[in-house]
């Protein structure tokens, strides 16, 4: 069995599972946020049980429209908060909360070998830790809150092998954008993407989170990594319960094996309006920008902010550009403050926000007007994603986004770091 099949099998009553098979899977953690929880709660109440199956295995995080941007979103957050207190569900209030997919691993709530389901498509982020994690809708979450399990069709696994060392300014974001550019937004539809190879081994855990996070952008059900020493080190200080590390069998069957030599790839940019519309940054052309966003569940971790700070240190954001930097959690914010990164950002003329999904989905804290362009370290650049239907979003890693904020147009970090 593959890594994903082994984890799934261990959460069923079966010894072995195969792709295509329908199984009932026990879940270790269920997640919802301020956008998806209200529907999940209403559906849960229709089932006719009083209590969630285990309040310590359900977590709800207000992160999309908080601190609340309007009355309607405040009502949704309130409905979720009241339900959490009533049920004793794990809940993080503003002040403790972070962007869910930055927060949960940081808090040790998701561990290797777990099955995690979340009412958020980027739940697949936790695959970086050797977790089987997948996004679902509110009704699936409602049913799982009642029963502690969920139906799944066992997905086939595509193994992606990244050979070679990474070039300057190239990181996890570039590998995943390059991959989606190659296989397309439905290139891994219904499948698991297993990320391997020496380039993957060389990445930090933060870089792996970025890759796993965007597996959904290729249509995947999950993205997954094997556990290594870096994972163990990350988990050690965080885990508060036992966990189990699984390895794929040597004779595991893969639907497809894709090899990439990444030693010569440049930082990648996804042009409007698809994450698959990728080009090396040197081939993007002369694109002026109005806004830069550095943050999100994709690139809002400490390593991302350190990379941005390397570019922004002792330099100035272009006077016509709004540069918005959003640490992914209070811990990331605090660490960035202690390390002096926040000071670098403010001196450069960037604005630093409390953790929120905000601008990534055109919610608040950086919505775009007609004709405006933004380069962003987020995950989607669909039509109207960050605001007006006539605006444009370009996706990149934090160094390209920071360099572009300085230049006022999309550039390689090499152009500003001389």
């Amino acid at each position: 069995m593959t890594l994903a099949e082994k984890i799934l099998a261990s959460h069923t009553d079966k010894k072995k599972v195969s792709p295509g098979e329908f199984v009932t899977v026990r879940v270790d953690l269920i997640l919802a946020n301020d956008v998806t929880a209200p529907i999940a709660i209403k559906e849960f109440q229709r089932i006719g049980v009083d209590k969630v199956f285990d309040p310590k295995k359900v977590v709800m995080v207000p992160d999309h429209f908080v601190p609340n941007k309007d009355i309607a979103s405040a009502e949704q957050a309130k409905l979720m908060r009241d339900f959490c207190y009533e049920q004793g569900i794990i809940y993080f209030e503003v002040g403790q909360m972070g962007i869910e997919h930055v927060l949960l691993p940081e808090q040790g709530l998701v561990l290797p070998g777990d099955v995690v389901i979340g009412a958020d498509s980027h739940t697949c982020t936790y695959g970086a830790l050797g977790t089987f994690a997948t996004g679902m809708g509110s009704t699936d979450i409602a049913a799982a809150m009642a029963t502690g399990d969920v139906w799944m069709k066992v997905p086939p696994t595509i193994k992606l092998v990244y050979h070679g060392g990474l070039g300057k300014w190239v990181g996890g974001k570039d590998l995943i954008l390059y991959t989606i550019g190659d296989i397309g937004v439905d290139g891994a539809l219904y499948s698991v993407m297993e990320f391997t190879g020496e380039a993957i081994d060389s990445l930090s855990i933060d870089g792996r989170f970025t890759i796993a996070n965007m597996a959904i952008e290729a249509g995947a059900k999950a993205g997954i990594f094997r556990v290594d020493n870096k994972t163990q080190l990350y988990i050690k200080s965080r885990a508060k319960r036992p966990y189990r590390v699984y390895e794929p069998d040597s004779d595991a069957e893969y639907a497809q094996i894709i090899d990439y030599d990444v030693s010569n790839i440049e930082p990648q940019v996804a042009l409007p309006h698809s994450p698959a519309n990728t080009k090396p940054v040197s081939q993007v052309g002369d694109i002026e920008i109005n806004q830069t966003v550095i943050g999100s569940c994709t690139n809002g971790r400490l390593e991302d902010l350190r990379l941005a700070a390397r570019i922004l240190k002792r330099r100035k954001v272009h006077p016509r550009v709004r540069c918005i930097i959003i640490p992914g959690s209070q811990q990331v914010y605090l660490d960035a403050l202690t390390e002096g990164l926040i000071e670098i950002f403010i001196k450069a003329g960037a604005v630093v926000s409390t953790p929120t999904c905000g601008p990534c989905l055109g919610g608040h804290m950086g919505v775009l007007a007609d004709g405006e362009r933004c380069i962003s370290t987020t995950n989607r650049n669909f039509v109207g994603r960050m605001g007006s239907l006539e605006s444009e979003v370009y996706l990149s890693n934090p160094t390209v986004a920071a360099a572009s904020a300085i230049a006022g147009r999309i550039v390689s970090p090499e152009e500003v770091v001389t």
Partner: protein
Amino acid sequence: MLLKGKVHKYGADVNTDAIIPARYLNVSEPAELAKHCMEGIDKDFVSTVKPGDIIMAITNFGCGSSREHAPLAIKAAGVSCIIAKTFARIFFRNAINIGLPLLECDEAVDKTKAGDILEIELASGKIKNLTGGMVFTAKPYPDFMAELIAAGGLIEYTKSRLVSRRI
């Protein structure tokens, strides 16, 4: 169940931001969401859609976010069925869970034009194109999915599972 309506046809990779932009996700009432259904791709949809109408798309319909608001908006707008060659995974689950019928049928997608009138027999997956005088057959659902649909969606299915656990 027999469904009948006019086809609204779209391309590949219609995403959930196109179906219901995130700025409207500060509410979750289906009727409110329906007012902005397909706003990101077709501004005229809400003013032209009639009860029973059918959405047709090429591949990977509903890609992007997990927001159940997307199928809820479509269902509340009066759409009776969505036909495509393939659906994004989370959207597929969400639609089945809330009782919005989806059919996968390559031939129907290739041969049907926007504005055609279709008549669909859900149980058999038979799709009649009344405008073009053609009949297509959709891919059958796997047994488990058929059971879920027959139960009336995931909540009803879960209710009966919990009852049988207690017995």
